[in-house]
């Protein structure tokens, strides 16, 4: 009895989870494997459209005779590069229709026209003309005739399914001159964005953890950049930083802080002189990182605030008794209490920033030295229209991420052991 109960429980569990598991498998896990497959193939964007045989039906009347009609099918192969084999054609007609002369490739039976057109090479076109008349001489309804759509079928090779593999894509990606630069840009963007957002998160969490008037309101305001749509925020920042009539540049010029406007999103380098040392700062990249910090520090803020509120008050009371200063309390009580959260946050934000596409894409489109790996996936796949290359870059991303996660957990494990 108990056994059957456990069995029904199992069965129910599988029935309940199956839809969700199947969907996640089809849309998330399967594409990852498909990515590996595609990355070893030479596929261009134009290759992925399956060639289709198409027919456009044009109905024309012949002179005054309403019982006779001409039908023109404009046949074509939709693909410019691939042939279609064994094209078959089928169209239906009203019961009183009779065909005048029959094309040798076709047969007309039971008011249905069936044709076998054989193979169509790429770019194939043909005007296929037929004449019909009604056997009882009644008038033909042209509109009704037009509404009946012919069906066409054909076989063609699907470039994605054949087994020609090549290492070309990976060679091109890894030995590209800009690959090192690409990696460095991605690393700067990810690392400084993550660190910046965590520092801001600590500051704001510490701030909101004090008691002051309007604290709940402040907490919502701090989350605004995180919940608002990225499209709206990116374009607002773009207008704010615009060199011609952006608010920031106008303000700086108005206060005579700068003389000529700075193109914060369109200038790759800026020379900075600090204490007699000249160095080049990657300006557009820095701006994009600032946007990233601005938009994502709220997540760090929330996590750290939740942790801060869970720290027992006794710790601080004991420190007060010992006469600890606020700085000492912060460094000796607060920081050790939030390191666990920070290390988790670092990992989450690092992974997400590493894959961040929208923000950079909307702000600069990857120009002026802000091309990161995800932007490269898009540019290879859709701007250069090379699907195989795009896939290869995604595979590089996945491999780098796995390497990061692996070494991060190892490092973390070591530190836990030491403590």
């Amino acid at each position, binding site marked *: 009895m108990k056994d059957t109960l*456990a069995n029904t*429980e*199992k069965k*129910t*569990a599988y029935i*309940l*989870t199956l*839809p*969700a598991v199947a*969907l*996640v498998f089809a*849309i*998330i896990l*399967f594409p*990852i494997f498909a*990515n590996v497959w595609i990355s070893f193939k030479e596929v261009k964007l134009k290759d*992925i459209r*399956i060639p289709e045989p198409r027919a456009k039906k044009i109905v024309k009347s012949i002179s005054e005779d309403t019982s006779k009609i001409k039908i023109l099918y404009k046949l074509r192969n939709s693909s410019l590069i691939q042939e279609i084999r064994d094209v078959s054609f089928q169209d239906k007609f009203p019961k009183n229709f009779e065909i005048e002369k029959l094309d040798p490739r076709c047969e007309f039976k039971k008011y249905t026209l069936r044709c076998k057109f054989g193979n169509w090479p790429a770019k194939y076109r043909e005007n296929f003309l037929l004449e019909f008349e009604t056997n009882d001489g009644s008038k033909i309804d042209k509109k009704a005739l037009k509404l009946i759509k012919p069906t066409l079928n054909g076989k063609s090779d699907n470039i*994605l399914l054949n087994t020609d593999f090549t290492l070309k894509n990976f060679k091109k990606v890894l030995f590209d001159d800009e690959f090192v630069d690409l990696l460095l840009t991605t690393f700067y963007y990810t690392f400084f964005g993550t660190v910046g957002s965590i520092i801001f998160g600590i500051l*704001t969490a510490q*701030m909101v953890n*004090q008691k*002051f008037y309007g604290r*709940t309101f402040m*907490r*919502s*305001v*701090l*989350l*605004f950049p*995180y*919940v*608002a*749509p*990225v*499209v*709206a925020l990116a*374009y*607002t920042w773009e*207008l704010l930083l615009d060199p011609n*009539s952006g*608010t920031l540049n*106008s303000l700086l010029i*108005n*206060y*005579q802080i700068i003389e000529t406007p700075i193109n914060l999103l369109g200038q790759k380098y800026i020379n900075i002189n600090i204490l007699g040392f000249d160095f080049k700062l990657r300006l557009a990249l820095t701006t994009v990182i600032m946007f990233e910090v*601005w938009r994502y520090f709220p*997540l760090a803020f*929330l996590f750290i605030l939740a942790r801060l509120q869970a720290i027992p008050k006794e710790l601080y009371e004991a420190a007060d008794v010992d006469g600890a*200063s606020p700085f000492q309390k912060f460094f000796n009580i607060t920081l050790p209490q939030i390191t666990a959260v920070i290390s988790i946050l670092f990992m989450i934000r690092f992974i*997400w920033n*590493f*894959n961040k596409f*929208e923000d950079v894409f*909307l702000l600069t489109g990857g120009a002026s030295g802000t091309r990161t790996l995800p932007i490269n996936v898009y540019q290879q*796949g*859709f701007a250069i229209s090379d*699907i195989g290359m795009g896939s290869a870059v995604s595979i590089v*991303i*996945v491999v780098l991420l796995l390497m990061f996660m692996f070494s991060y957990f190892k490092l973390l494990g070591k530190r836990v052991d030491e403590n």
Partner: protein
Amino acid sequence: MKTKNLILFTLISTFFLIFIVSIWKILATLQGLNIQNFNLQIIFIFGVLISFANLRIGNKIKGFYKSILFSLIFVICDGYLIQKLPLWYNIGIFLILYFFVNKINKYSFVNLREQHSTQIIFFEFLTLFGILFFSFVILFPFYMMLITSFKTQIALLVNPLDFSINFGQDLTSLFKSYFVIFESYNFGRYILTSTIVSVGTVIITLIFAIPAAYAIARLNFFGKTFMSTSILIIYMFPAIVLVIPLYTIFSQLGLRNSIEGLLIVYTATTLPVAIYMLQGYFKSIPKELEEAAILDKLSWFGIITKIIIPLSIPAISSVALYVFMIAWNEFLFSLMFLDNPNSFTLSRAIQYLSGDAETPRQYLMAGSVIVTLPVLFIFVYFEKYLVSGLTAGSVKG
């Protein structure tokens, strides 16, 4: 020791004063006032003098009169130096000074002698500074977005610093950008598409997630632990990696440029979060209720619809709000899958609009306001539910 504390205190409070007056001056400049410099030296001297005098006078004069006195002195000197500024600007300066003097009122020579007094003062001013700084930095872009959508192209080009809105004009010209994007750019349609996609995603996700979360929370089956850990790993997986294979598959199946295609992808990407949040809540529901239901011969469908769902309305609604926000804000997949303007979502439509360099910026900002408002409204209104879920790491970004 005492003088060091005194100097530090006056410096910290003065820098705070400089900061708030500067923000006020920036905001005043943006209302079209002609302010060319901050007069930092003068504010600095006054700040030091006021802080010091405040300590010196102590409680000899009542706090209220003292604040008024200092504020008036500052306003008169400031108004004399930067002439011809309207009354509202000076009232603002007066209020800022009043606030500032009130803040430093509680410090006295006795305070400064206490242990760690400078650090305590530093932290207190840092908190105040932080509140103002972050409010300004965060709200300013939103403020700019809203104001720009009410301006005209010429006004924006002539004086980009003039953020003032003429409320005297009639409503049709004030909301002109909004009328234009609805009439000429078809925004009504995009709002409809976005709403259908977002609400559809919410419904389908819940239909898939509730049974799965229930099974993971309650039933024993092979692969349960594997499933619950892989949910989180899948959640970390980058969307950009899915884009190319999904694009090719969807192209071949004819699912691009269709709402169905978007619904499938959005549902799949939000499912792991939804299941994770829901199963956590389901575990907290007492088991006895279900045991009674099993004795009453209720099927699992009955258990879920009659017991689990009514008991977890708060959790389900917060998951629903999240999924709605994720789907509404989503941009990457809508960029990849939609290239026919007839099936654009709001985000995609705004991006498409900006692709044309001729599009006036106020239209772009009006579109941005339209796409932002629902999300911010939902967020502020349901904040209590949402924050707890956010900490569970639910909004991906």
